[in-house]
C-alpha cells in the first residue's frame, strides 16, 4: 500500500476577506514554500479594502467587536497544533491566543478608561470619547512571527480601526495561517488585510499612501528605512508608532490601542 501523498497549501495574500495571489504573479521561496510576493498594486488594493471596511467595523458596537475578537481566540485555540507544526514555540502560540482574549475585553472598556466627562467652568455638558483613527498600516515584527503579529494587529482593530499589515518577511507561513483564522472568525472582510513579500518594497508605498491614517513601524528593523517611512508619513500627518522590540510576553498595556485613537469632545449647553 502506497503512502498517501499530501496536499500542499498555497500561501496567498489576504485582501478584503479573500485570498488572492499577487496581481504581479510573483512569489518568493521561504520556509520551504513559495509565498506570494506582494506588489504596489496589491498594497493599494489592500488599502481600498481596508477603507471600505472602516464604516461598518467602526460602527459595530464595542460589545460585538469584543465578541469577534474573542471568537478569533476560540478559532486560534482550535488551530494551536498547526502553528506549533509551523515552528512557532507552543508557549508563544498560547500567549498569542491569550492576547486576543486580553484585547477582546478592552473593546468596551477603553472608552471608560480613556474618556470621560470634563467639568468645564460653565453651564455645559462636556464629554470626551475615543474614536478610531481609520486605516492603520502596520509593519509587523519579523519575530516572533505569530505573537508579534497578533500583538500589533489586535490592538489596532479592537477600537474600530481597520489594518493593512505587512507580515514577517522571513517567517510568513504563520501570518498567512493566522489570516485563515481571521477569515473564519466572523471578522468582516477588509478589517485585516495581510500582505507577504519584501518589506523594503511595499512599506514605502504604505507610508506614502494618502488614504492611510496611521502607521505602526514596530517591525522595521532598519533605522534608515524607518526614518524615510516616518518622513513619508508626514505628508498627510499619519499617526506614527516608531519601531520597537518590546518583551512580547509582558502585559502590553494600552499604548498600542491609544496610539491609533482620536479623542472627540462634545459640548452641549445646559438650560431650560
Amino acid at each position, binding site marked *: 500500500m502506497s503512502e498517501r501523498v499530501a496536499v500542499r497549501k498555497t500561501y496567498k495574500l489576504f485582501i478584503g476577506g479573500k485570498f488572492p495571489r499577487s496581481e504581479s504573479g510573483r512569489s518568493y521561496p521561504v520556509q520551504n514554500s513559495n509565498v506570494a510576493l506582494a506588489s504596489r498594486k496589491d498594497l493599494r488594493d489592500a488599502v481600498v479594502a481596508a477603507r471600505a471596511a472602516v464604516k461598518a467595523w467602526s460602527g459595530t458596537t*464595542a*460589545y460585538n467587536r*469584543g*465578541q469577534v475578537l*474573542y471568537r478569533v481566540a476560540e478559532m486560534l485555540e482550535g488551530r494551536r497544533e498547526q502553528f506549533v507544526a509551523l515552528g512557532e514555540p507552543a508557549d508563544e502560540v498560547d500567549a498569542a491566543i*491569550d492576547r486576543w*482574549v*486580553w484585547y*477582546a*475585553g*478592552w*473593546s*468596551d*472598556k477603553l472608552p*471608560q*478608561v480613556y474618556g470621560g466627562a470634563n467639568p468645564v467652568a460653565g453651564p455645559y*455638558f462636556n464629554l470626551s470619547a475615543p474614536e478610531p483613527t481609520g486605516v492603520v498600516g502596520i509593519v509587523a515584527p519579523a519575530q516572533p512571527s505569530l505573537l508579534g503579529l497578533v500583538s500589533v494587529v489586535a490592538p489596532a482593530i479592537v477600537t474600530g480601526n481597520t489594518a493593512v499589515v505587512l507580515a514577517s518577511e522571513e517567517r510568513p507561513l504563520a501570518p498567512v495561517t493566522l489570516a485563515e483564522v481571521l477569515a473564519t472568525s466572523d471578522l468582516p472582510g477588509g478589517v485585516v488585510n495581510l500582505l507577504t513579500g519584501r518589506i523594503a518594497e511595499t512599506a514605502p508605498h504604505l507610508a506614502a499612501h494618502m488614504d492611510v491614517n496611521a502607521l505602526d513601524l514596530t517591525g522595521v528593523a532598519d533605522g534608515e528605512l524607518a526614518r524615510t517611512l516616518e518622513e513619508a508619513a508626514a505628508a498627510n500627518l499619519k499617526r506614527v508608532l516608531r519601531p520597537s522590540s518590546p518583551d512580547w510576553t509582558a502585559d502590553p498595556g*494600552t499604548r498600542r490601542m491609544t496610539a491609533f485613537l482620536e479623542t472627540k469632545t462634545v459640548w*452641549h*449647553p*445646559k*438650560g*431650560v
Partner: protein
Amino acid sequence: MALFEYAPAPESRSVVDIKPSYGLFINGEFVDPTDGGALKSINPASEEVLAEVAEAGAGDVDRAVRAARAAYEKVWGPMPGRDRAKYLFRIARLIQERGRELAVLESLDNGKPIRESRDVDIPLVAAYFFYYAGWADKLPYAGFGSDPRPLGVAGQVIPWNFPLLMLAWKIAPALAAGNTVVLKPAETTPLTALLFAEICQQAELPAGVVNIVTGAGDTGRAVVTHPGVDKVAFTGSTEVGRGIAKAIAGTRKKLTLELGGKAANIVFDDAPIDQAVEGIVNGIFFNQGHVCCAGSRLLVQESVYDAVLESLKRRMARLRVGDPLDKNIDIGAINSAAQLERIRTLSEIGAQEGAERWSPPCELPDRGFWFAPTIFTGVSQAHRIAREEIFGPVLSVLTFRTPAEAVEKANNTPYGLSAGVWTDKGSRILWMADRLRAGVVWANTFNKFDPTSPFGGYKESGYGREGGRHGLEAYLDV
C-alpha cells in the same frame, strides 16, 4: 374591539427539563439540606408546581460560606486574572448557547413574557458576564490603584423580578474582582439560578467559587449575618435593605444596596407624543411593572395633558395580557399571590383617596395571578399611590407647569433610583439631569440597561453602583 385577531403563538416548553426537586449548590455539587426544609416554586401564570426546592438552614449556609472561603483562599484568590477571565468567558458563552432554555425557564418561573426574557433578560445576562470577564485581567486599569485586592466571600441576596439578570449583576463583577460568592435567589424564582449552577459545572468553574443556597427570608438573613461573609450585596425592598444595613452595623462587611424606586417620567410639551407614550408604556408596563426603576409617576406638562392621556389610553388598549410563553404577549403574570395582593390593596387605596382609576377592557385568564394595566389620574403628591412603590402595572399621573415644578415634584420622594425626561430640547435634558436626584436619568428613552453603564440609586434607593467600571468598586478592597 380588537384591531387584529392574534392566533396563539406559544414558545415550546420542551427545551427545558425541570427536575422534580433540587438541592443546594455547595462546593460544586448539588447537596441535600441538612437543617432546612423545602419550598415549592410555582408557575404564576397557572399556579402549577414547577419543582420542589431546598430551603437552606443556617447550617447549610455555614457550609456554603466555608466552601466559598476555601475556594477563595486556595483557588480563586491566587488564580491569575487572565484565568479567571477565561472561566467567565466560558460562562458567558454557555449562557449564549443555552439562551432559549434559560429564557423559557425564566418565563415559566417568573411569569414575564417570553419576548422580554428572550430579547432582554438573557442577552443582558450573557453581556454582563462577557463585560466583567474582560475586567478580570485588567483591574489595575480600573482606576482603583495599581493592585486592587478582592474582599473575600460575598453574600448576595437577589429579588424575583429579574432572577437571572440580578444573579449576573451580582456574580459577574464579584468573580471578576477575585471574590467567591454565596448567592440566595428569591424563594419564588430559584430555577434559573439552579440552572446557572449547572452551567458553572459545565464550565468547570472550580468548586466553591459559586454557591447557590435557595430559601426564603431566614436563609437570606443567615447569609447576610454570617461572620464569614466579607461583603453583602442586596437587591430588593427598601425595608429589607434598611434591616440589612442595621444588621451588619459594627462589622467589617462592605455593603451595597439596590432598593426601591418611585421614578418620575417627565413629559414636556415639546416632546414627540407618540414616542413619549411608547416610553411611558415601556417605563411602567415592562415586566408587569416589577421593576425597581419603573417610571411609576408620570409627570405631564399641563398643556399636553389631554393629548398624552388620550394617546396613552389608546396605546394601553392594544396591550395584550396573558400566557407569558406566548410570543405576542406584552404583559405576563404577576409573580406571586402576595405581590398581587399588594398591588390590589394599593390600587384600592388609590381609588379611596380620590384618584380616578382606568384600565382598558382586558380579559384575564382564570388561573394564575393577573392584574390589568392600570392608570390613576387626578393623583396628588400626598396620595399613597404617588409615594409608595407599588411594583406592579399601575401608573400614577400628575401634572406640572414649569421645569422647576417638574424637578420639585420628581424629587419629592424618599427614593432616587431613576427618572425619565421627554423633550426635544437637548439643553433642557441636561438642565433637568443636573437637578434630578436619581442615579439614572433616561432622556427620550426609558428602561435601558447595559453592562458598561453604572446603575444604582440616590437616597433611600440604596447605595453603590452595579455595572460599568464603577460596579467593580463594590467588590474590591478600596
